[in-house]
């Protein structure tokens, strides 16, 4: 069986190669208004309408093929497009200009090809990378284009590849398949031509949606009938608007107006329907999905931009140097060389030519290999993220995925995290947990989901007049918008837009009220074996103003009932006044539930007179169908029917937190990252979850900004350790320019901000506001389609591959399977990558300046003629061979501290940021490299001044000095890499010493090739001479040592007198390692062999349990006190200090030695934190 069928058939999980991950889909369903405007302003070729003849090859015009291509290049377009892309980078233009300037005769001091050749090498590497990536895309396209589907042809259903589907074809889609193109639904296997689709590919919503076939085509449900059908479709031209479609279906002169409800979009999936027939209207790149596909905005890391600024700075330095040296040349020409007869007339050069000469001479101040080095390093760093076994989720078999690699170091710069709530902090698996009926609580906290037989008993014994328990359960089963789906094994699965509702329906079915069928006008409930039909007369939907939903229904008995569920404050206002007792008890329960972080709903009902109902119903339908809709009247009528309700009780639904959420958030807070929660949920739920996930603790003041006026109530001066809760409807005001000071003084200073009732675009606006106001790096993390906008707006977007489809993950920069992996992603990968990347960049600048400024010192001795001190090819190969690898190795294998230390002391994260790429550090490195070049040149000069360095009396010429200096530079630069490295791994040592060796080998070969190959005549014999000179070797030991001595001393004084926190951590690591060797023998299981996370794997903590107890009681200070003292004097509160020395989670669990050792990883966190909060 072909996987092409199989995949579509059997797997519930979406094959994400239908949407290859390099396409970033930004679907604007949630912002349909903006999508319409952007579509209309798009200056693209517009096909106003199309006329399609169904089931025939003869179309009025040629339509786009269904074959999609996401490749960037083809054989012909590769070169021009590639070059265009490459020369958008300033540095590439720069090197091209240098390579061209070198072609001017007599201008270049380094020959004609010494820039062109390395430049071509680097371009070739980029080209190979591009080709490789494009081939990957091509292969993905090939797979997608060759999926099979059934097409009606010659009265038979024939299998055809997707790419061969044409506009006008009638195709048959089977349950579970993905639609290959945008098609108009003609008929389906179900009654009335109904079909259920799932659109998680398009908008991330996993609930089923109903589509209904046009009345005129429903009857064509066999292939014979279809074959005889003569149909035409007239519809609008292809556009990107997903929620709109307009057209006409014409079958045998019967006209039918088509709307979006009859259109099945490419990428959606047929569910719960045996088959559908449809006519293809938009194919390939005309399909709405592809019209909406958009490459993600290109994000650049802060470091990238800083590096660019530095390069521009160096460019001006270069120009200045060239001008100064050009002037120097003029002075020498006039005062010294004018009478030098031996020069003939060659000294009379012109100023501009000299400037050009020096411009070429010093061009390597701008490191030619930096781009490639960085790209290489980042590529492998991304590999570390993808391969991190500690960011691998066993349950979903998902590893972390770095979708872009150029933001790796940005992960180490994060100062704000914007997190979604549902599905990110919480699992979005709602469980019906408890309920309160008539003042009696059922269910408990311990069970995973509701398990209390008493309720069923009470139902069976319910002989009261009102039968409240029965109503309670009936409401749970009836009052919702869930669609049931019967699985092959007979089990029923519930689909709905609200997970709370599904939780209630599932809860009800477990209590014997099984919701079985939903038809357009009724639902079927199986009450303990007895099937009852409820005719749904009206459904008054939930919205954020009403905060309740109602269903008006009647049974066969003809009794009309209103079932209402909603937020407690809304419902309690609408119940009859005579139930004080029950309401009071329930209120007590409600506050209990809320404290535990449960989502609560209140339920009530009302019976209606048939007459009253009919009267109301007439008015209601009049009001709703009026054009324009009479909103006020509708609201009043809804109000009218939802009053004088009989209170039934309350439900508690638990949305469990993801694993280790509080620990992760506490770690982020310690790392000085401000965590904001942006959620579409209501205020109460948002604050509850914020509390249970440790975002808000009881000590902080909480200010709620619900209306515009609340902004003025907060006085910045009185604030200290406070949190804010901002409602979505004031976002506009907060963002507006007039409240700039409010944002700066209040909003950005809050320890946490919870934004509730946010739309996706408001989330993005908040992200942009923070970016603008604080100029800091903002990371967004989310899992649903509603987070896409914020993920794309943030500096770094992280997607959680969760319940709500892959929308967020595929538009993110990094995707992870669990929220708590964020901790490792930032604290370990982010901090490490940032540290390494900065090192790579600084080192690259350093080595270039160090080598090429020597040319400047030499100019003072060569009459500013632009003569190079080194051979031209040795210069050219400096960056691409002799010192190419040490920076790459630094970028890949350097480890500042242990990963575990980073996780245990998140405070270090901030300290790593401070080592950032600041002007001060850049200046320090530049100064050091100038000092190095000065020493390297003048020491060599003084040692070799005489040029007679052998007992034999031979004379070393120009290149004897040059090659010696070059050797000293290579050795110094390679050893500097070792000095800068935080960890000496074997591979680093091999590459550093190997680089030195490679220079010697190259030099030996190079000085022998003349005259066999006509290069390097000047180098002939130099290697042999150099290596036979004792002076050279004496210098080789001395010069690099003395040059690096200053670095050595600076580093030594700094680490021992002014140790940075990371140095202290290393001291502690070393101390711990010593202790471990002496005192404890630990047996490590297989599982913790790789896990160095102190939270998920606390058994590997190096301090023993008793030590921890002592530490917690602060009775005995740890033997090596530096770290705790460090944090002590920082004014951290007591409990925080305890955290530093004990495993980072402080809670009741630690009081229990059994739990501590056995079950820390599996304890129910929300429960634990709830305990703490009460």
């Amino acid at each position, binding site marked *: 069986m072909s996987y092409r*069928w199989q995949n579509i058939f059997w797997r519930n999980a979406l094959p994400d190669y239908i949407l290859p*991950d390099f396409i970033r889909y930004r679907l604007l369903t949630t912002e349909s208004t903006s999508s319409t405007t952007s579509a209309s302003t798009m200056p693209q070729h517009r096909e106003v309408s199309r006329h399609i003849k169904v089931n025939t090859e003869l179309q009025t015009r040629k339509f786009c093929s269904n074959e999609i291509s996401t490749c960037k290049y083809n054989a012909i377009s590769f070169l021009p497009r590639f070059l265009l892309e490459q020369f958008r980078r300033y540095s590439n233009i720069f090197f091209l200009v240098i390579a061209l300037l070198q072609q001017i005769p007599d201008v270049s001091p380094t020959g004609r090809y010494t820039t062109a050749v390395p430049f071509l090498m680097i371009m070739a590497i980029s080209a190979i990378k591009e080709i490789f990536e494009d081939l990957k895309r091509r292969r993905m396209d090939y*797979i997608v284009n*060759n999926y099979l589907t059934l097409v009606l042809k010659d009265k038979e259903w024939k*299998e055809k590849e997707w790419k061969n589907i044409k506009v006008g074809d009638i195709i048959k889609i089977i349950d579970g398949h993905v639609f290959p193109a945008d098609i108009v639904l003609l008929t389906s296997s179900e009654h009335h031509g109904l079909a259920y689709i799932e659109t998680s590919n398009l908008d991330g919503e996993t609930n089923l949606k109903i589509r209904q076939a046009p009345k005129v085509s429903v009857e064509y449900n066999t292939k014979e009938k279809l074959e005889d059908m003569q149909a035409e479709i007239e519809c609008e031209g292809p556009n990107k608007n997903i929620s709109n479609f307009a057209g006409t279906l014409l079958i045998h002169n019967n006209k039918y107006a088509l709307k979006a409800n009859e259109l099945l979009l490419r990428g959606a999936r047929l569910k719960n329907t045996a088959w559908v027939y449809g006519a293809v209207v938009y194919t390939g790149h005309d399909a709405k999905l592809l019209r909406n596909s958009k490459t993600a905005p290109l994000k650049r890391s802060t470091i990238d931009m800083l590096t660019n600024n530095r390069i521009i700075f160096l460019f001006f330095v270069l120009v200045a140097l060239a001008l100064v040296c050009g002037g120097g040349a003029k002075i020498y020409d006039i005062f*010294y060389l004018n*009478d*030098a*007869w*031996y*020069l003939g007339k*060659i000294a009379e050069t012109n100023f501009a030519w000299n400037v050009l000469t020096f411009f070429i001479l010093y061009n390597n101040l701008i490191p030619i290999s930096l781009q490639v080095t960085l790209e290489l390093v980042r590529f492998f760093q991304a590999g*570390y993220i993808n391969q991190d076994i500690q960011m*691998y989720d066993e349950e979903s*078999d*998902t590893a972390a995925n770095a979708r872009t690699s150029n933001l790796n170091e940005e992960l180490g710069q994060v100062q704000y995290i914007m997190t979604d709530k549902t599905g990110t902090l919480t699992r979005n698996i709602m469980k019906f947990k408890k309920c309160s009926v008539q003042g009696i609580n059922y269910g408990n906290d311990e069970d995973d989901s509701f398990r209390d037989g008493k309720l069923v008993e009470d139902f069976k014994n319910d002989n009261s007049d009102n039968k409240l328990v029965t109503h309670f359960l009936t409401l749970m089963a009836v009052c919702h918008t869930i669609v049931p789906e019967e699985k092959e094994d007979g089990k029923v699965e519930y689909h709905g837009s609200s997970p709370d509702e599904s939780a209630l329906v599932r809860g009800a079915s477990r209590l014997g009220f099984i919701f079985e069928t939903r038809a357009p006008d009724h639902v079927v409930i199986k009450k303990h074996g007895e099937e009852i039909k409820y005719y749904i007369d009206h459904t008054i939907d939930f919205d954020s103003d009403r905060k309740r939903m109602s269903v008006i229904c009647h049974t066969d008995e003809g009794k009309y009932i209103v079932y209402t569920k909603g937020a407690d404050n809304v419902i309690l206002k609408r119940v009859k006044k005579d139930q004080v007792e029950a309401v009071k008890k329930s209120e007590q329960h409600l506050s209990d539930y809320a404290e535990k972080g449960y989502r609560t709903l209140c339920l009530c009902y009302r019976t209606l007179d048939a007459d009253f109902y009919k009267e109301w119903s007439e008015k209601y339908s009049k009001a709703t169908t009026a054009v324009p809709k009479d909103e006020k009247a509708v609201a009043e009528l809804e109000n009218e029917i939802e009053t004088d309700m009989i209170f039934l009780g309350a439900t508690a639904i638990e949305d469990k937190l993801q694993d280790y959420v509080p620990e992760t958030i506490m770690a982020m807070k310690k790392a000085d990252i401000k965590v904001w929660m942006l959620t579409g949920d209501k205020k109460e739920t948002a604050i509850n979850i914020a509390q249970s996930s440790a975002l808000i603790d009881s000590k902080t003041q909480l200010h709620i900004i619900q209306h515009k006026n609340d902004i003025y109530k907060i006085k910045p001066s009185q604030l200290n350790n406070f949190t804010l809760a901002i409602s979505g409807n004031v976002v506009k005001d907060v963002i507006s320019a007039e409240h700039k000071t409010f944002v700066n003084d209040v909003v950005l200073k809050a320890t946490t901000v919870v934004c509730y009732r946010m739309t996706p675009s408001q989330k993005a606006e908040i992200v942009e506001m923070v970016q603008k106001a604080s100029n800091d790096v903002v990371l967004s993390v989310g899992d649903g389609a509603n987070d896409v906008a914020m993920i794309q707006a943030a500096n770094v977007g992280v997607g959680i591959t969760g319940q709500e489809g892959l929308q967020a993950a595929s538009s993110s920069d990094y995707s992870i399977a669990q929220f708590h992996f964020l901790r490792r992603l930032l604290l370990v990968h982010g901090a490490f990558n940032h540290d390494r990347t900065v090192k790579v960049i600084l080192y690259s600048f350093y080595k270039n300046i160090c080598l090429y400024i020597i040319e400047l010192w030499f100019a003072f001795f*060569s*009459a500013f*003629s*632009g*003569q*190079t*001190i080194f051979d031209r090819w040795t210069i050219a190969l400096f960056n691409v061979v002799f010192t190419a690898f040490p920076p790459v190795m630094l970028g890949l294998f350097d*480890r500042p501290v242990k990963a575990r230390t980073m996780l245990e002391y998140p405070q270090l994260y901030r*300290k790593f940021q401070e080592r950032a790429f600041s002007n001060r550090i850049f200046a320090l490195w530049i100064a050091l490299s100038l000092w190095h070049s000065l020493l390297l040149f003048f020491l060599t*000069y*003084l*040692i*070799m*001044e*005489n*040029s007679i360095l052998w007992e034999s009396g031979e004379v070393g010429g120009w290149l*004897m*000095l*040059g090659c010696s200096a070059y050797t000293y530079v290579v050795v110094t630069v390679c050893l500097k890499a070792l000095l800068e*490295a935080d960890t*000496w*791994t*074997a591979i680093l040592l091999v590459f550093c010493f190997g680089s030195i060796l490679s220079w010697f080998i190259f030099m030996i070969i190079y000085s*022998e090739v*003349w005259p066999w190959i006509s290069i390097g*005549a000047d180098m002939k*014999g130099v290697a*042999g*001479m150099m290596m036979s000179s004792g002076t050279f070797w*004496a210098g080789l030991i001395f010069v690099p040592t003395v040059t690096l001595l200053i670095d*050595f*001393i600076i*580093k*030594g004084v700094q*680490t*021992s*007198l002014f140790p940075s926190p990371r140095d*202290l951590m290393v001291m502690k*690591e*070393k101390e711990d390692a010593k202790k471990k060797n002496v005192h404890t023998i630990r047996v490590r299981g297989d599982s913790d062999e790789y896990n160095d996370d102190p939270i998920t794997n606390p058994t590997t903590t190096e301090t023993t349990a008793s030590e921890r107890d002592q530490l917690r009681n602060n009775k005995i200070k740890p033997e090596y006190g*530096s770290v705790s*003292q460090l944090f*002590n004097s*920082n004014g951290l509160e007591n409990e925080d200090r305890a955290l530093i020395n004990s495993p980072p989670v402080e809670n009741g669990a630690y009081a229990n030695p059994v739990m501590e050792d056995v079950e820390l990883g599996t304890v129910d966190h929300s429960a634990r934190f709830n305990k703490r909060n009460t």
Partner: protein
Amino acid sequence: MRRIFNRNLDSEDLPNIRRRGKKNRPKDKPYLQQKLVGYRPLLTLRVGLVVIAILEIFLVASGCFLFLLVNAAKEHTIDYTNCTQLNDTNNNNYLEFPNDGITSSFEGIETSGNGNIKCIYKINLTTTYDGSVKFYYGMNNFYQNMRLYVRSRNDEQLQGKKLSMVDDCQPFKHRNNTKNRRFPIAPCGAVANSFFNDTFALKYYYNGTEIPVPWTTNGLIDEGVKTKYKNPQYSLKSNLCEAFANTIRPPAWPQDICTLDDNEGGLGFENFDFMVWMQTAALPDFRKIYRQLDIRNETFRDGLPPGTYILYINFNYPVKEFNGNKRFIIAIESKMGTKNYFLPTIYLSTAVALFFATIFLVVVECCPCAGLNNKLRQVAKHF
């Protein structure tokens, strides 16, 4: 319906997708999990002290050793730039090593019939200059490292195969002969054109007679460098000048390349002095090897014996125009080359500097005010 479609795609081609099972589980390899074994160096005062101490000991030891080596060398310089002006005395600005047992004085000039000037210097040796004594000439303010000068040569022409190769040799590529015929210059270029043509002769004043000091060029040039210079091929019947027939000598030269001879068979391009000259110097103040003492001669088996020597200099090469000077150097090399105290000095002075640094570091290490805890407290303030 469930047939096998399209066999050339196998399931390995599938991109990473969410499958059940553990297919996406990353491998637990040290290089993937960033757990390569490594040593974490921590540069504390104590480590620094140890390193510096070792370095000091090494520098002192090798500095002393280098000093002894260099001290064995001897050197004497005679600046003869102004010797043609009769009133000029030996105004020697060069570093003299007084214990080298050698003095020199200007004796006068000799003008021969064809206008050639010879400068004569008297040299007094109080000790034996033992071993193979070297003779150098030197110049300063001569920018042999001027960029366009350096490149004004053609190494392919010097290979003797294509004498007409004069690319890069501007401004000395071609020249008209007296009959106005245009020839490529051999050797072409500014470097060759400015070939140094002063010659020297040293005589030993012994028992009232002047014995010429025998000189040789053997082993004074690197074998590798030698291969860069080859005369054009010529048959046994003809001579070198015929091989150079279609070329013309550089404008500044008094003689054709083919007649250039160093008396030891170094003809034409393979002429010793020419080869030495063509190795351009790195700095504007340079010296180049001229000859060394031929110790095969009985009298000079042990070097230059003490006594009086007369130096005859054929004064040809103009340096006054560019304020240069010319000098003649008698020297004995150490293992490290020319007598140059820089290396031992810098070794020893670095060691001294490090010694002071060590004292400072020891004080810091011992001082209670700089104790670890104190340091930590300091840092904590900034934390």
